[in-house]
């Protein structure tokens, strides 16, 4: 009896740890054999008592949707440091597209970028310059002498490229990144059809999920 409780508490902990959203008592009870929605509340209390006694840096919090694990408030400043030292926000799809065109067409004018993307790129371009991925690379000769844009050294660093020259050429892009359908065809070719049998034990088991 004792053991089974310990087991349930551990499973509860594993679930709370790995969950991507708060877990309701009902949902938890459905996943743990020996638990009921009522007993889950007890298990949570037990778990929190453990955490307190053992000076753990986190505890179970009850929120609208159920229970979740969070760090204790006293560690907030460290967690905030951690967040701050994390990578800056992910580039948007728009930024990514614009950046890819700059990389391949540089030096390139804003007008050219806009004509390729079919939308204005002013804001995106500013973001990219702010994040030091794109720089002003000069001015085009001729009418209006518009600014030209190119990539920075930080761009190379960011994407782990030794040099601009390591960007795949169009034919190489085709092979590595061409669209899904074709890729799936290739993936199918890679994997022998199951009814033909694998070429060894592990292979046969390894293919399917």
């Amino acid at each position, binding site marked *: 009896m004792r053991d089974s409780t310990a087991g349930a508490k551990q499973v509860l902990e594993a679930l709370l*740890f*790995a*969950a*991507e*959203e*708060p877990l309701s008592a009902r949902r938890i009870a459905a996943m743990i054999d020996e638990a009921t929605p009522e007993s889950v509340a007890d298990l949570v209390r037990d778990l929190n008592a453990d955490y307190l006694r053992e000076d753990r840096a986190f505890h179970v919090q009850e929120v609208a949707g159920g229970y*979740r*694990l*969070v*760090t204790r*408030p006293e560690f*907030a*400043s460290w*967690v*905030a440091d951690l*967040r*701050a030292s*994390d*990578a800056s*926000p*992910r*580039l948007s799809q728009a930024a*990514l*597209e614009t*950046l*890819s*065109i700059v*990389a*391949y067409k540089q030096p390139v004018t804003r007008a*050219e970028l806009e*004509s*390729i*993307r*079919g*939308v204005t790129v002013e804001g995106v371009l500013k973001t990219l310059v702010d994040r030091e991925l794109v720089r002003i690379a000069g001015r085009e000769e001729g009418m209006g002498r518009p600014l030209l844009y190119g990539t920075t050294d930080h761009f190379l660093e*960011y*994407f*782990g*490229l030794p040099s601009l020259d390591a*960007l*795949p050429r*169009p034919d190489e*892009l*085709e092979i*590595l*990144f*061409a*669209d899904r359908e074709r890729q799936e065809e290739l993936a199918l*070719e890679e994997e*022998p059809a199951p*009814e*033909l*049998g*694998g*070429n*060894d*034990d*592990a292979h*046969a088991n*390894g293919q399917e999920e």
Partner: protein
Amino acid sequence: MADEARPGHSVKIEALDFEGPLDLLVYLVQKNEVDIWDIPIALITEQFLTYLQGMTAERLEAAGEFLLMAATLLRIKSQMLLPRPEVEEDEDVEDPRRELVLKILEYQQFREIADQLRDREAAGRLVFSRGLQDLEDELEVDTGPALPEPEERVSLSDLLRSFTRLMEEAQRDRVHRLEPLGVTIEEKVNFVRDRLRRDGQTSFRDLFVPGEPRSHWIVTFVALLEMVREGEVRLRQGERFGEIHVYAASGRGAGE
């Protein structure tokens, strides 16, 4: 090696069930329990060809690498049959099988590593890192100001993938993208009006003429937004993600 487990009895195995010609050779060497440094080339060649013969013509097309290896095996076999030339004192004569043996050994070694990686992959599937929850909220409890949600870095493949997608789209559209838009919002407003006058309503999708440059679609879209804002048209959607219908706000189709 788990080669004994090949389902040789119930199902006919052919060359393409192997990862490649080297995989098949490793299998044959092991099955025959021969010394890798003294491969009976005639026997192995014969068996190798048997696997190729089992294949239908269409699958044979996919088997270029196997055919190439078959040619190599036959060449080695014939070299082995040739009488050895008299060898002078300092001269080395290469065993015709040597290069192939080294290749088999190298391949076999990587296969062993692949097996180990597979075990590690399986083990890795048993552990989970912490689920990513709404972290801003977690911090808000104490620090007040919400911090921007940290997000993962964009990788080079993300970048290259989006460029490839762009270029693919461009190719599909067959657009002369460097040319000016060639169409004004007014023209597109009139186009939508004409359509509504004629049909009373239209589906959103039908307003985008296939084959038209993407830039024109954008103008159509802007025109439509403009008309919605002006109260000239209304948009309706039967169900989420369903088809969107466009009605003239005061027209025949609007009332239903």
